[in-house]
């Protein structure tokens, strides 16, 4: 599905923290949002998922105006893996994953057979099945992050927003996590937006790139347009080299 983001100003009050961010994502595209700390990546994700108090602009998913939809219908279109993955410790892992089905369930959260199928599939994909009967309070930060991803997958939305989803994961799970995301975008046509710090991972998995600085768009486009040494050096305030590795496709960004 097509995601059209056109944010004029957004923030926690009238003095907006992000402004002038406009882009379109096609079905199945994976956008990597990069930029230094405080550049507005998290605020952008909050703006698109509309949990900010102040937003001016337009947000459309396939022609559906997100400002006009209810919380419930929006949650059927957009799932979010937030940066702070606070999980109440007294819930079981499978209960938390099932909560991804909230927009499809009745007032008492009764799960249908379909809900159970989505939950099982999401837990398999994220490799959380083996501790599905454990309390969330007993999990490590990385495991918790995967539980939240499972919940977002169970939500079965065409658009997926992720804020630093790999920050607590070890190398293997970082790659597995992003490969899974990539597969979802390629095979299921999910439109994915990932905010990330690791430029090497961003370069490896992103189709398009949005570089942010001081709360606004610095560059938007393909790797050739955005992942340039002079651009990255300017954004991060640090000289970097961008190297094409001899294995063919991969790009490495190395600080000088």
């Amino acid at each position, binding site marked *: 599905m097509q995601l059209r983001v056109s944010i004029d100003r957004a923030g*926690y009050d009238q003095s907006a923290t992000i402004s002038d961010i406009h882009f379109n994502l096609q079905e199945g595209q994976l956008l990597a949002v990069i930029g230094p700390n405080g550049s507005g990546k998290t605020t952008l994700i909050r703006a698109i998922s509309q949990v900010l108090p102040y937003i001016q602009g337009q947000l459309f998913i396939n022609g559906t105006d997100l400002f006009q939809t209810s919380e419930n219908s*929006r*949650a059927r279109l*957009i799932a979010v893996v937030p940066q702070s993955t606070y999980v109440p410790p*007294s819930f079981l892992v499978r209960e938390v994953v099932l909560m991804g089905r909230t927009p499809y369930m009745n007032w*008492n959260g009764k799960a249908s057979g379909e809900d159970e199928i989505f939950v099982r599939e999401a837990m398999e994909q994220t490799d959380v099945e083996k501790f599905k009967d454990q309390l969330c309070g007993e999990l490590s930060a990385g495991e918790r992050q995967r539980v939240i991803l499972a919940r977002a997958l169970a939500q079965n939305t065409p658009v997926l927003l992720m804020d630093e989803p790999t920050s607590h994961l070890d190398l293997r799970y970082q790659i597995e996590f992003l490969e899974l995301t990539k597969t979802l975008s390629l095979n299921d046509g999910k439109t994915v937006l990932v905010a990330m710090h690791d430029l090497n991972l961003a370069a490896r998995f992103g189709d398009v790139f949005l570089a942010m600085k001081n709360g606004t768009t610095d560059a938007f486009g393909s790797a050739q347009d955005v992942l340039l040494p002079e651009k990255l050096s300017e954004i991060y305030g640090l000289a970097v080299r961008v190297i094409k590795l001899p294995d063919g496709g991969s790009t490495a960004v190395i600080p000088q």
Partner: protein
Amino acid sequence: MRKFTRPLLLCFAVLVIAVFLSIGVGSVAIPPKEALEVLLNTMEDTAPASDSTRTYQTILLTLRLPRTILMMMTGAALAGSGCAYQGLFRNPLADPYLIGAASGAGLGAIISLTLGWPASAFSYLTVPLTAFLCALLTVFLVFQLAKVRKSLPVTNLILAGVAVSSFATALTSFLLINASGELRRALVWLLGGSTMAGWKPVLGQLPFALIGLLGLLTFAYQLNVLQFGDEQARQLGINVNRARTKIVIFATLSTAAAVAFTGVIGFVGLIIPHIFRRITGGDMRRLLPISMVGGAVFLVLADVIARILVAPQELPVGIITSLCGAPFFLFILRRSKEKDW
């Protein structure tokens, strides 16, 4: 950790025992068998067999049964609203007293009492209604005072709750001192003695408690999702502001129903949900209903103790709940190694 059906049935069983104990104990002891007989006779509308059963019937139907039912509903209302507040504020310390709802309700009830409204025909409507409105106002005030932008820091909540509660209590005392005719009645009420005998308070409390508690039960699942914080709840499709407003209203209605008819009874709303959280886990769809039944059991038993401890005199039941509740609560806390919050 995840048990529900069996503990719930057990709670109901204990509740039945507690009820028979409560209607049996007093200056005239009524054994369970006779009590049951009288109740069945009354239901079938048959005349009492003997003089002794006639006396039993009078005592049961005009004194002990309404009082027991009042205690049941009050316990359920306090435990239910405490459970909901704890879930809503994501804070184990939140209870009807801490966040000011109970003191607000007390103030409202006293205002209504000193203005002489109880003398009117609407007495059993006006007291809980003013209690409810004042409680709502207090909770709103605490909420606004404690709020920093969009978050609700725990320490702020406690400080604001304590401050606003003290203010409401001071106002209550002021009204009490200035009240002349109604003073005695209001004072006894304030101490948590259920002085209003008979069926009138039961009928007065019933609609408020019922609407409050049933309303809370319909929001049990949304309370679960709210445990993740506003942002995640909203991203999962919950209309957070609407859900929270309604939960506050229903919880405050329950609190007001309890306070308006039985006065100040502490600790039920705090300890009962904590105890059951350890049995059923954090899922409000289990925790809320079982806390309500548990609260009813606890208060009925506390009332029995209040009646027999210094018989023939009666202690205010609030003294018993705090005397039993506080040590038991600390015991539970110390024993548990589990991190529940």
